[in-house]
């Protein structure tokens, strides 16, 4: 069990839980990035087999970068800003256990990126996903959305920035299941427990294999 000012985490029966708790919309702060990293390290040491990542409250999973912080970025600081984000996603992608995103509300911009780097996503009926970067003249979630999705669907979401509600997200395969809000953590726990009960080496190898399969083929 642990936490910092904006992140809480604990483990129960070999399932780890991380909650982004930065109300009202759970914008992703440096505290959250540190919290995710520290929690995953601690879980590995404690023999956790799978991890559930979610947002506090019923409004948002994660609303992405703080636009207030982002508007002060200069040519010098933007590189560090991008590197901090990338580091978090890399930690989740390269973590040797599955991470399940429990999408309890808005997942937009950098919050969508965070959701997409999770290995599996389950959502509540209140889940709303949006690649909203384009609305502020930026791009985010391009890479992961383009890899998870066939190009036609990636273009639709990225170029319009439109909101995808839970039922459409399920149909598109962005969510693997959708349940009522009060059942979300139970559902995410069931997915995590199913994975935590399998041999760790097998889960780690399967995750690595999928990561590698998304690499472009070597020309023959």
């Amino acid at each position, binding site marked *: 069990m642990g936490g910092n000012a904006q992140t809480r985490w604990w483990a129960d029966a070999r399932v780890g839980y991380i909650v982004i708790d930065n109300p009202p919309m759970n914008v992703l702060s440096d505290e959250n990035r540190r919290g995710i990293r520290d929690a995953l390290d601690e879980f590995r040491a404690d023999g956790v087999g799978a991890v559930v990542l979610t947002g506090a409250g019923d409004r948002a999973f994660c609303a992405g970068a703080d*636009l*207030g912080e*982002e*508007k002060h*970025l200069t*040519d010098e600081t*933007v*590189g560090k800003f*991008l590197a901090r984000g*990338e580091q978090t996603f890399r930690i989740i*992608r390269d973590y040797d256990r599955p991470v399940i995103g429990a999408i309890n509300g808005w997942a937009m911009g950098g919050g969508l990126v965070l959701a997409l780097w999770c290995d599996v996503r389950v959502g509540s009926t209140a889940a709303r996903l949006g690649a909203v*970067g*384009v*609305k*502020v*003249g*930026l*791009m*985010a979630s*391009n*890479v992961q*959305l*383009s*890899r998870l999705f*066939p*190009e*036609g*669907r*990636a*273009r*639709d979401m*990225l*170029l*319009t*920035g*439109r909101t995808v509600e839970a039922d459409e997200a399920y149909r598109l395969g962005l969510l693997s299941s959708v349940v009522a809000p009060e059942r979300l953590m139970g559902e995410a726990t069931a997915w995590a427990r199913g994975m935590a009960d399998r041999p760790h080496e097998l889960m780690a190898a399967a995750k690595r294999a999928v990561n590698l399969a*998304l*690499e*472009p083929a070597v020309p023959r």
Partner: protein
Amino acid sequence: MRVESAGISIVAIDGACTGADFERALEADIRVAADGATFSADGARDLAACAHRLTRLLGEARAKEIVLGPRRFDAATALRLGIVTRVVPAAELAATAAALVERLAALPPLALPAIRDAVRAARDLTPDAALAVEHAHFRRLIATRDHKAAVAAFFERRPAVFTGD
């Protein structure tokens, strides 16, 4: 019907979309269809190119379903496969396309082609190289006047006006 907005092409499909029409529709950025539309790759001028494009657009399993499977399929199947991202009653097709044009026209124009190019690149690059492309675009876009206008409008809860700089 093919329309363009901020350099992004939208095809609204009604009736039979086959052969060369089908090939042209696949080249667009966004496709929507009327519920009575039908689709077929039959008569394509270059079936191999069509198969390649379909694999990029839909993924391998779905592309094979089209190229090797039933010769003609309906709008509901096109939606399921991801050929189109929306199906509406025929009477609403023109308005749907117009709404998309309007929506795209209201977005910052510099970001749109950058996103389209980055989507295309993401498939051909390693994740690290693709992220580098995305970040290069991000660094350029964050310095634009349009981005600053969008953030200011967000905080002032009003629509933004974009100039393309």
